[in-house]
Structures are given as structure tokens and as C-alpha cells.
């Protein structure tokens, strides 16, 4: 038995009062009306089998615990099934709030390696899931065009898509960070 129960205190410098403002501005405008009822957690398919608690993320966001929320792998357990958003009695766009926080996390360099890989595939090919040899073969056997008539079949289209990702800063966001990581 422990002799004492230690007290968990949130230091004021851990709280960023502007964090929730940014979430509101980006579209989850009712997040401050959260009553912590837990409906979001109770309908969450990921929460059913992991320690991921949507209610906890929302509470931490409201407290302004920016670093804690953005660095947590839990943020990436949401399958974006939108059930919490549909069921929230305060009509908070919960899924949107999670996506907004994920954008902030990536901006700050918190990105799972598999997700960076997917992004690199998109940057390279215009597809997050590009064609491979087995599926080229299957397409042929099925009487489909061996290479799908997408960006895969057009250099001009791929160039346009790449240009768009340059202009929005996506290439820098993904590859810039990779370079820093490699240093």
C-alpha cells in the first residue's frame, strides 16, 4: 500500500488559453458548450477496445493542454466514423475538432511514421495508394486498362497535382520535416 496519494496538479504554464480559440475558429465552434456527458466516448468504436477517450481529449482541449493533446498518439485512434458528432447532445462537431487538432499536431511535427509514408506516396504519385504489379496484372486479366485512367496515366495531371501540393505547402510540411528528422 502506498503511504500517500500524490496530487496531480496542472501547472498554469501547461495551459494555452488560445488553443481552444483556434479550434473554434477552424470550425468546431460549439466546443465550449461541452458538458462532459461522455456520449462521445460511449459510442466510439476505438474507445471500446483502447484507452482512447474522446471526452478526455475534448476536456484537455478546453483546459488548453495543447502540448499534451497534440503529442498524444490517442489523437490518431479516431476512425472518423462521425458517430460522436451525430450523437453529441450539444451538437459539437467532435470529429471536426479532432481533425483540427490533428492538423495542429502535424504542423508542430507530431506525425506517425506510417502517415508520413502515405503522404510521401501522395506527393510522389498523386495517389495515397498507388498501383502495384499484382494489380496491374489483375486489371489486365479483368479486361480493364492496365494503368487506371487516373493521374497514373497522365504526366500533365501528375504535374498539376504536384504543383498544387507545392503551393499549399504540403511538400514542405511533409518533406521539410523529414529532413529535420534525418539531421
Amino acid at each position: 500500500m502506498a503511504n500517500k496519494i500524490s496530487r496531480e496538479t496542472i501547472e498554469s504554464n501547461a495551459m494555452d488559453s488560445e488553443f481552444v480559440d483556434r479550434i473554434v475558429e477552424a470550425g468546431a465552434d460549439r466546443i465550449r458548450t461541452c458538458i462532459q456527458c461522455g456520449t462521445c466516448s460511449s459510442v466510439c468504436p476505438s474507445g471500446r477496445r483502447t484507452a482512447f477517450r474522446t471526452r478526455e481529449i475534448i476536456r484537455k482541449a478546453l483546459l488548453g493542454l495543447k502540448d499534451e493533446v497534440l503529442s498524444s498518439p490517442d489523437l490518431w485512434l479516431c476512425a472518423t466514423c462521425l458517430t460522436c458528432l451525430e450523437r453529441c447532445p450539444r451538437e459539437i462537431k467532435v470529429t471536426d475538432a479532432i481533425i483540427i487538432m490533428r492538423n495542429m499536431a502535424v504542423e508542430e511535427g507530431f506525425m506517425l511514421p506510417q502517415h508520413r509514408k502515405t503522404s510521401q506516396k501522395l506527393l510522389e504519385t498523386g495517389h495515397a495508394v498507388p498501383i502495384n504489379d499484382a494489380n496491374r496484372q489483375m486489371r489486365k486479366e479483368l479486361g480493364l486498362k492496365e494503368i487506371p485512367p487516373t493521374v497514373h496515366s497522365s504526366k500533365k495531371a501528375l504535374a498539376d497535382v504536384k504543383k498544387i501540393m507545392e503551393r499549399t505547402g504540403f511538400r514542405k510540411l511533409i518533406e521539410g520535416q523529414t529532413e529535420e528528422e534525418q539531421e
Partner: protein
Amino acid sequence: MTSNQTYSFFLGCVMPNRFPNVEASIRRVLPELGIELEDLEGASCCPAPGVVRSFDEPTWLALAARNLALAEMAGHDLLTGCNGCYGTFKETLAEIREHPQRMKEVQAVFKGLGIKFKGNVDAKHLTEVINDIGPENIAEGVTRSLEGLKVAVHYGCHLLKPSSNRPWEKTHRPVFLDRIVEATGATSVKYKDKFMCCGAGGGVRGSQVAVSVDIAKEKLDNAIDAEADCILNVCSFCHLQFEASQMQLNKEAGEEKYNLPVIYITQLLGLAMGIDPVELGLHKHMIDTQPLLDKVLK
């Protein structure tokens, strides 16, 4: 059957690059229903609403708008057979229509690329178009009744939600897809958590595969408990999830514990319309569809 409609067929990534058999079934069946498909040449990833939108929303919006613009320039509405792509296009259209500033941002990104975009194009899920034809008309085209076949219908998430931006009746328990399935003579079985997610979206399958497969397992177990002959989907990513997760579960168990055929809606309709299963790509599944075919072709 009905007057012909032409759509720009948006393929996405998973369908053409991992499940061309699903693509083949769509291309084979929709024209039979009076729906003509024109290739949306040069289209990219939609991009995926769970991953790319989570990484950088402005990039997601711009690439989605480009795909929509390609359809708009071709003069057709866009048609997709993937719930994720559907979600991306529906949410992008809402965003640019509700916030003119976002449209300006997108157009600035398109500068000099020859992409004209007014935003007056629409995006539809093929289930929407099939539903408009109506179960009664579908039933009239049935030449091989699927009577006796028990189907676990999986709607998926982005087809239905957010409900504020979807065309369906406002209910948490829709029946439109069950009605289409039952028009073939098959029975849509009741099963636990029918409206639960497949577990693939949001970047969960890509990064936390154990959690993702466990969600799929729960749905598969529920469908098996209801004695379903197959699990039916309308989304290439749900399709991947149910096929690949069963393979993985079998690998982990060291035995073939899971063998529930995973069927896409146009494959089921095609069977009922008397089309050869090979033309519907049913011989190219990860989980053998033969038990289902034995039942249907008896």
C-alpha cells in the same frame, strides 16, 4: 430501364489500385441500369478524408476541388463508389459553398493550371443513383433471384454522416440499402452493431492496425453470429478492410477461421441480373466467394 444518365466516374485509389474486381463489377452493372460512366481522366486521390484532411486541410480541399473541377469541365456530375471519397467531395462542396473565401483560396492555388471551377458540379455515391432508380425497378431486372441468401448489410460511415450534409432520410437506422439488397430476393439479416464503423478510416488502419482489425473482427463476428452468407458493402475501403482483416486474422490464428465472403453492391446486383460471376470479378477475392456462388447458382 430508365432514361440514361452519364456521370464522370471517379475511381479514387483503393478501387483501381487494389480491388479492380470491384471496379469491373461497377463498369459492368451500372450501364445495365441506364447509368453511363465516363472516365474522369487525370483524377488523383480524392484525397482521403481521414488521413490527408487530418494532415493538412487546405491541401485536402484543393486536391478535392481539382477532382470536382475535372468533372465540372467534363459537364457531368461526379460518381464515386467509395464512402471516403464521397465524404471528401460532399464536405468540400459544402465548405466552398458556405465560405466563398475558401473558394477564392482554392482558385488561387489553381492559377495558371487551366483548371476552371465554379463549384456548380454535384458529387454522388453510386448507391444514391441506384436508390433513385428504386428497389421496385431493380426487382424487375432480376433474372436470377437470390432468394435464400442471407446478407449482412454494412452501410459504412461517410455514406450516412454527417447527416446534415447527406441526402438520406433523417434517421440513425436507414433502410434504403437493405431495400436495394432485398430487391434481389436476398434477405438482409439483422445483426448487432450493424451501423458501426469497419475500423479502417481516420488513418487507423494505416497506423494502428491491431485496433483497426479488432473493430473489423467485431463486425465480422456479429455478421457470422447472424448466420450471414456474406457481408455486403458499398465502399472500396470497407471492402479492403473486411477482406484483408480476415486474411490477417486467419494468419494470426494459424487456421482458416474467417471465410465470410465480402461482396460489393454491384457484384450482388450483377449476380441477380444473371451476369457471369467472372465478369463481376468474383473469382478475384481474397476470401473465396465460391460458397456464396454455390448457393446462388444452384
